[in-house]
């Protein structure tokens, strides 16, 4: 997968992966947020199960 936004270092500015594809950056952001939300939900489920055993 070619994720590079540059073909030469001459005059390069933002050079991180997908820097020239804001839609993909937005999607990556959404996936990152989803990971956080999922983990918090998982945390709550773990707590509910744990407290039932007390």
């Amino acid at each position, binding site marked *: 997968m070619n994720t590079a936004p540059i073909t030469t270092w001459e005059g390069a500015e*933002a050079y991180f992966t997908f820097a020239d594809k804001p839609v993909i950056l937005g999607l990556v952001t959404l996936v990152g947020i989803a990971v956080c939300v999922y983990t918090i939900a998982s945390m*709550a489920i773990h707590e509910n199960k744990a407290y039932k055993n007390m």
Partner: protein
Amino acid sequence: MEQSVPELMARLDSLESSLAMATTINSEVFYWWCTALMLAIHAGFLAYEMGASRAKNALASGMKNLIAFAFLIPAFYYVGWWIYLAFPAGLSIADGSEAGLPWSTNMGPNLTDNASGIFYAAFTLFAATTASIMSGSVIERIRISGFTILALVLGAVVWILGASWGWHPDGWLTTEWGLHDVGAAGCVHTVAGFFTLGVLINLGPRIGRFNSDGTVNNIDGHNMPMSLIGLMLIVMGFFGFLGGCIIYTGDMWTTIYNTPTTLSAFAFNTLMGVAGGMIGAYLVTRDPFWMMSGALIGVISSAPALDLYYPGFAFLVSFAGGCIMPKLNDILVGKFKIDDAVGAVAVHGFGGVWGLIASGIFASGYPNIAGPEISFVGQLSSAVVFMILGFAPGYALSYALKVVGLLRVTEGAEIAGLDKAEVPASAYPESSVPAAFTNDPTSPTPAE
């Protein structure tokens, strides 16, 4: 050796370019190490809160800190930095704030932007500090999931909105009211302290904290030495925190309001503030825990005018803070039955308010670059804004979490201990330790 004018001009251009690059690199290096030092704040909060917990809750208290830290880093990347850039005027969105959106070309490796990443990092550590301020108060009975949600809202939204309003060269509290708060006593400490107060009201006290006749039981943590070392680590980390409050331009140092200052000014008054707070808290409590909390109170008390105070005066302002805040905590616990396990509402919330009021009294008349001069009314009004900005969302969100059952652990889990209930590890697994240092639920507090 004779050189032609074009050669000299070329050399001059080269020297200017090298100087500009050196300035940029120096700035990056400065904030890089400020950020690294600020990590000591979180190591400190980790140790101090685990020590302040009973052994049966030690790991759960630590987990809470670690989780908040881990979640706040991406959360601040996704929304926090943009909020800071977007809202200095109040609630309207500023031009240019799109540079802080997570899909901006400024929010990643960029050879033409040496500033965004390093400032994002420093501000993220400030954000994590606000969550850590709350976390000690709520130990031993809050659900980690509920705490994480609260920490995310406080650290990635609420405090940074306050920073945009009052800790920004164009923030409306400064341009309209002349707020001067170089050490972030208001947007960090007051906001976090009053957010915590709102949470504590809905969370309620630990089982056994209060008797039916209203008298108070002390619930001692299991490791006071660990707490004291943690508090000293926080003080160390404050040198990174306060260093990060200064802007490095290459020519000179300025405050975040663009007024000129020096690192020496901050060094004088930070140390004198630490000492004043420690001595004041010792004088009124004789308690080592409060003496080290007094160090934090001292820094916070002098923080708004660290660039302006005569050091001997900063000592006295912080001494007064160190004397007052432990008594305010006694009132919160004894009269209002607020079970703040580490006194964070008094130390940070009211400590920040005292710092702003003191600077309004003793540093009024100094000019600002943008906005009116420092005044008592401006500092006091700004303190009220920070109190409301912290308290209202803290209360509302914790109330909502309480309604859906995500705020507090069950009674059974609280009595058995949160480590046993939900942490797949043991703090002291093989040691032969006294009953009070184990997960043994048969060694409860007096009213259990």
